């Protein structure tokens, strides 16, 4: 009787069924294809591609990243090839690779958000659209929408109307009350919320007296933010009924399990990909091993089972 049943890792984010709860986080996984030398990306729950805008975007001047204790600041400024090239050149290759993929989008105006969402709706295989309402690194990156419930609600409603694809809204952690923001997204028709995006931070060089980033401030990610991300995901899970996707500082299966335990439907892995290109699949395997060891047969038997005294 030592025979072990392979646990069922399948996860559901609203209407989107994933073979496992591990996705790559936008902006840390390129367009997905870059990982093909390392592993078969169809093994992931989903690939979330780099944030797409209506037109190709050059991004910020160099001085875009700086390492911080157990974290990093980035101010890439959403450099990307634009939605048109994505649809024509990248999407077919993701289809060929058998990947489940989600497009992360942003616009300088609500109309741009709508246009990008509309264009992406043409892609039959696209699993969902993730609305980046929280990029701290471009003035127009949605931060104006993402840091108050009214702004987020308006944006979400408009994009919701522009596409039939499942709509995930990515939330900014730079707020007083994440539950309130999550509810605003839910009420405006989001199919899921994903969080956290990066926390606004800064680093300066005491000797040259200059900021380390050309953009002065940047977004903090990596293990350093995990405790904050986990708390916000927990709060969001309590605040809304739609699925919550947990993101922030996940490096290994144990970290991913923490987010699932507090109620996340699935997780995204970002900065960890940089140090270990295999991070995402190692996390899938690690979750499976944990479930085997702990005799948990289905993800749903574990999700949201945090014990409070």
């Amino acid at each position: 009787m030592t025979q072990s049943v392979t646990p069922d890792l399948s996860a559901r984010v609203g209407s989107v069924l994933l073979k496992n709860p591990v996705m790559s986080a936008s902006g840390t996984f390129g367009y997905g294809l870059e990982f093909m030398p390392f592993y078969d990306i169809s093994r992931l729950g989903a690939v979330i591609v780099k944030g797409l805008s209506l037109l190709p975007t050059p991004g910020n001047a160099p001085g875009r990243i700086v390492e911080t204790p157990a974290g990093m600041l980035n101010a890439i400024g959403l450099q990307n090839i634009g939605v048109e090239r994505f649809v024509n050149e990248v999407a077919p290759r993701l289809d060929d690779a058998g990947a489940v993929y989600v497009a992360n989008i942003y616009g300088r105006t609500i109309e741009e958000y709508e246009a990008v969402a509309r264009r992406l709706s043409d892609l039959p295989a696209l699993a969902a659209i993730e609305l980046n309402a929280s990029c701290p690194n471009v003035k127009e990156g949605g931060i104006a929408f993402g840091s108050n419930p009214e702004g987020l609600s308006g944006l979400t409603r408009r994009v919701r109307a522009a596409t039939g694809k499942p709509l995930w809204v990515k939330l900014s952690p730079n707020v007083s009350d994440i539950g309130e923001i999550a509810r605003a997204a839910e009420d405006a028709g989001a199919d899921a919320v994903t969080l956290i995006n990066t926390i606004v931070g800064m680093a300066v060089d005491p000797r040259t007296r200059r900021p380390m980033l050309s953009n002065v401030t940047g977004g903090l990610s990596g293990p350093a933010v995990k405790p904050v991300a986990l708390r916000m995901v927990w709060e969001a899970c309590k605040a809304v009924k739609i699925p919550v996707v947990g993101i922030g500082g996940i490096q290994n299966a144990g970290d991913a399990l923490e987010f699932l335990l507090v109620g996340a439907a699935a997780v995204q892995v970002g900065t960890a990909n940089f140090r270990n290109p295999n991070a995402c699949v190692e996390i899938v395997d690690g979750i499976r091993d944990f479930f085997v060891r702990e005799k948990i047969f289905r993800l749903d038997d574990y999700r949201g089972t945090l014990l409070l005294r």
Partner: protein
Amino acid sequence: MPHGSPRFVHGKILHNTGSGIFYRMEVAIPERIDFVPGQFAMVSGWPGNDPLLPRPLAIFRSGGVRGKGAVEFVYKVVGRGTALLSGLHAGDPLALTLPLGHGFEFPGEDRSWWLVGGGVGFSSVFPAAAALDGQRADFEIFLGARTREQLPPGEWIPGGAVPGRVHLCTDDGTAGFFGTVAAALRDRIDRRKSSGPARVSILACGPHEMLKAIAELALPLDIRVQVSLESSMACGFGVCWGCVTAIRDGETSGYRRVCREGPVFDAREVVW
């Protein structure tokens, strides 16, 4: 030259010892890898998440026997990551993503090669020298350093025993030419004019100011210059867009990834 597809491997340090200001570290890896001079590895694997990011190091040598591989690096301690590396011992684990980036190009035509390394820049230039030495090509090496002690040991220089091949330059005149490598190159260019029309190609790696001076000196003379640039990197394999530099592209310029389209660029395309 085509570059091999990158892989992520767990290695074990074979040795890691300081020689003057440079450390030389060899790491056993599961399989032998091929690389193009100028390509690099992202090195990590120390305990804990601080430092968080891997560090780029040029692949100095690659070898191996019976299916197992080994790679060698040369580095200088400049900050937290390299200090941490220097404290590792034989037997310690290390994780590597390699080979990465676009290395030096060696067009087939008959020409002379001038290889220029400033500071620890020799770490990507010596592999190029080793390749040229293997092809019995015509090359000379220019090494620049602030002072005598900061030059690499002579026995590390591939083909360095050939008389007249190696030009040492120090800012303080404690060894070789008294002045920068750029000044030494200017001398060499002047001498070349008198000695004939052999086509020359420069491969250079070192501080940004040095590379810029070389480009300004050589490009107007139609000498082809390839430079290996540095940049802060998070991933090293093209997925974070953190490492970009401005590159001219016809009329316009755009940000290209140093880790992917580079680190070696044609000096004409770099926005200096």
